[in-house]
């Protein structure tokens, strides 16, 4: 083919030759014959008047201190929770609060049956640039065997364990897809071992939090977890964001190819396969959830993939630095 531009121009001819099927023409004709009532819109002056009245009301209320302080603090908190577009300054600012010689646990919260977030599982964490899984720690204390993960209300949830990663009283910043959803303090962790899976699960009870999302990712650390806000597309299961802060956007998305689920990272037209799930498991799986978040405070966004079905949950976090992808945290629970 001589040239792509020429080829596209030629292809335009065939695109323009596409005819509207008669069936569709008839259906649209029928709609046009029976149009529903049109939405009435306010005149421009009415809208301006309403907006001006609202502004005046707010200003006058604030002048006379009629906005309760609680409401003011709520407004301030809501404003502060809006993630700002990332700049170099934000990233440097974001990276400052990472404390040396201190573990920064990363947790995952699923919505409980009451529609709120009250417990989390610990995915692992970081300290001084290194990643840690919960298996890297010795744990002192009892554990709950045969726990019915994740909500076994009948169990005694006071079997706390002591470990360096999560000591209790940590305040976690919980992030939804594109914003900070809220903060919550956690208790000491509880160790449990689910049926048929000799894997340790660390759960932490947190102060109840409400948010719209199905799940939230929590970080214990003062940095901004979303220094650059990703764009999620409605027609694509994935998002676009500058992961490394090098000015080039990456796209992370999942696609079904030959029945297998594949998660790709794309940059400058080139792609890396991050993860593949065979088709036998895809059939019973929910659509994978893809998130990006700076979970170690280095100003770069990690990729977090959550795969869930009725029987098991897999969470994996990947670090993408200098065009190299590395799995840094993983969590699995299943029957």
């Amino acid at each position, binding site marked *: 083919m001589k040239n792509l531009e020429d080829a596209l121009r030629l292809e335009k001819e065939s695109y323009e030759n596409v005819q509207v099927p008669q069936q569709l023409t008839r259906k649209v004709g029928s709609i046009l014959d029976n149009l529903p009532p*049109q939405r009435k819109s306010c005149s421009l002056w009415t809208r301006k008047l309403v907006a001006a009245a609202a502004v005046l009301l707010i200003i006058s209320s604030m002048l006379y201190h009629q906005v309760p302080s609680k409401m003011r603090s709520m407004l301030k908190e809501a404003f502060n929770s809006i993630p700002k577009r990332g700049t170099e300054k934000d990233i440097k600012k974001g990276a400052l609060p990472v404390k040396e010689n201190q573990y920064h646990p990363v947790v995952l919260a699923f919505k409980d049956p009451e529609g709120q977030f009250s417990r989390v599982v610990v995915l692992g964490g970081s300290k001084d640039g290194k990643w840690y899984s919960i298996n890297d720690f010795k744990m002192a204390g009892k554990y709950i065997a045969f726990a019915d993960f994740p909500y076994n209300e009948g169990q005694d949830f006071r079997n706390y364990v002591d470990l360096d990663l999560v000591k209790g009283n940590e305040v976690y910043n919980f992030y939804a897809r594109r914003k900070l959803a809220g903060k919550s303090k956690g208790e000491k962790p509880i160790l449990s071992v689910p049926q048929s899976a000799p894997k340790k699960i660390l759960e932490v009870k947190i102060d109840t939090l409400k948010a719209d999302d199905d799940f939230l990712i929590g970080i214990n650390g003062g940095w901004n977890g979303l220094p650059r806000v990703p764009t999620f597309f409605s027609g694509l299961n994935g998002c676009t964001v500058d992961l490394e802060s090098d000015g080039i956007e990456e796209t992370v998305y999942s696609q079904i190819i030959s029945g297998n689920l594949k998660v790709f990272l794309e940059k400058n037209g080139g792609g890396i396969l991050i993860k593949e799930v065979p088709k036998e498991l895809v059939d019973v799986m929910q659509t994978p959830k893809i998130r990006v978040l700076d979970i170690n405070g280095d100003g770069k966004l990690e990729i977090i993939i959550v795969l869930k079905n009725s029987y098991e949950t897999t969470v994996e976090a990947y670090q993408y630095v200098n065009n190299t992808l590395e799995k840094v945290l993983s969590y699995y629970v299943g029957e």
Partner: protein
Amino acid sequence: MKRVEKSSREKDIALARKGDDRAFSRIIEEELVYMYRISNSILHREADVEDGVQETVIKAWRQLPTLKDDRYFKTWLIRILINQCNEILRKQKRIVLMDENPCASEEFADSSDRIALKDAINRLDNELRTVIILYYFEDLSYSEIAYVLGTPEGTVKSRLSRAKNKLNKALSDRIGG
């Protein structure tokens, strides 16, 4: 100041905004061709394509009084259409299977360059394909596409560049392979 005579289309848009359903019908009859073409290139399946177009017609009628400037009617309508198509894709959680692409197998054997290009376009991700369709086939400008997709112009340019890279790669792979 010289008074510019409005075209019959502009008059129809103004009338439709005030609730004239006959004027709206005349506009839609004109616009139906490109609405179908765009919907067809995003959704492929005939039933979905029809749903996308029909829902867009109803939404456009209901939302027409909110259109701020009649000159942008076409881009405004395409914006509704693309949102509607994406909504259909999202609801169905249907991902276009690369191996099940409608023109992949038998037509490819024909080895025509144009069929190969069409195939490569169909294999693009929805976002990239949409930008190619709007820019090359519907002749929309960067700023118009940015409005339609609700993204910055820079994103449109980068998507277009990525789409072209992918098309070039797909076609060169085919020649090489």
